[in-house]
């Protein structure tokens, strides 16, 4: 495996928060975004686009491009760059379009 594209600057802030990216623990500084954790994890893709299945990683890091969509703590399609890490956060890839679940909610037809 080649060297990761991104590394943290330990002199800036200590990597004090441990999160799980695709189940693997990654240490990131407090206040960092889930997208930063994804980049530090060195994972090849955090989402596959709904239309063509093309792989993507976080890009703009400021809430514009939607390329960092991930499943975070079980919630689909979250913009990882807009979510601040918390200890134990689970960040999973978003593969294709999210599912919505007919019949799963109160008020739905039986």
């Amino acid at each position, binding site marked *: 495996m080649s060297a990761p594209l991104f590394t943290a600057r330990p002199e800036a802030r200590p990597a004090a928060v441990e999160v799980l990216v695709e189940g693997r623990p990654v240490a990131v500084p407090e206040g960092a975004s889930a997208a930063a954790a994804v980049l530090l994890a060195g994972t090849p893709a955090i989402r596959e686009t709904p*239309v063509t299945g093309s792989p993507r990683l976080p890009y703009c890091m400021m809430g514009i491009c939607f390329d960092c969509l991930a499943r975070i703590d079980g919630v689909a*399609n979250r913009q990882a760059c807009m979510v601040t890490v918390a200890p134990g956060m689970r960040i999973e890839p978003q593969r294709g*379009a*999210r599912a*919505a679940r*007919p*019949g799963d*909610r109160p008020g*739905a*037809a039986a």
Partner: protein
Amino acid sequence: MSHTHDAIVVGGGLVGTAIAYGLQKRGLSTVLLDEGDVAHRASRGNFGLVWVQSKGLGAPHYQRWTRGSADAWPALARELGERTGLDLGLHQPGGLHVCLSGEEFEARGAYMARLRREAGNLGLEYRMLDHDETAEMLPGIGRAVVGASWTPYDGHASPLYLLRSLHAAFAGAGGTYRPNAGVSEGTAAPRDFRVEAGGEAHRAPRVVLAAGLGNAALAPRFGLEAPVRPQRGQILVTERARQLLPMPTTTIRQTDEGSVMIGDSKEEAGYDSATQTPEIMRTMARRAVLTFPWIAELNIVRAWSALRVMAPDGLPIYDESDRFPGAFTANCHSGVTLAGAHADIFAPMVAAGGLPPEMAPFSARRFHDVRPPVHSAA
């Protein structure tokens, strides 16, 4: 000096481009004049239904026109696909108009029955479905759904791919497109028109005004009238989700890419298309969630408003000038539904040189026929 063509079409939206494409592919050299992004661009705010079942109550000619266009759509989509390589996302699996109360359901039943009576020999296949029958067609509906009307004619398509493919096919067939070409001058004589736009002059024996709301000011220069006004509609768009809707409803559809679109509003708001109003967005979202409770899980990622082009009676206007034969108008608020009719029914009429008698009910002359109110003797 002026450029000479067989036809000038004013308006580069869905209506003008469909007509221009229909003329050009029939061998008429056509110039398409597009004002630019200062125009209201109704085509870019379109919801994307190819819709039959709510059109033409009290106006059998419009019901027939809409059905004809829905019938012409598959061939148009196929042809545009072959010419441009673009998939328009056309699906015509039938559609539902969902009712959320007993009154809505009863009123809808009466509406559909009258529409069928007015269809005459054309016929109109429809069914009123109760809650369980609706749930069979559309899994995941909410308990609030009392029932729905269904017809097999309805469908949907991508309005943006339609607009893009019409432009590409028009250019591919040899048509001349002029962007940033708002009309500054127009002079008319029978079958001889001169239009100045974007610093150029164009001359042709036919001119078609398809400039949406812009037609109101343009039409009088060519011996025509187009009393159209803006009616605002708002749209909400969700994040992409896996396909859940096997068919569209009057107000909710799912695109090929997975976005759920919600469009359920009509407002008189003048020319303001830059505003979305929270109450209306809330009402639209509430009705959508009552219809499909699972929609509440999805995030809204976009919202916009756009201006429908409405005649006083809500019906399209197609007209030919008496004073200046060869000058036509085309105005409607269904640029997607009627694209098939515009490219392959209306354009051939323009190419042939005049509108046949069955188009007479669409003339703006109908607004002259206003009788004074009748006072009863008692």
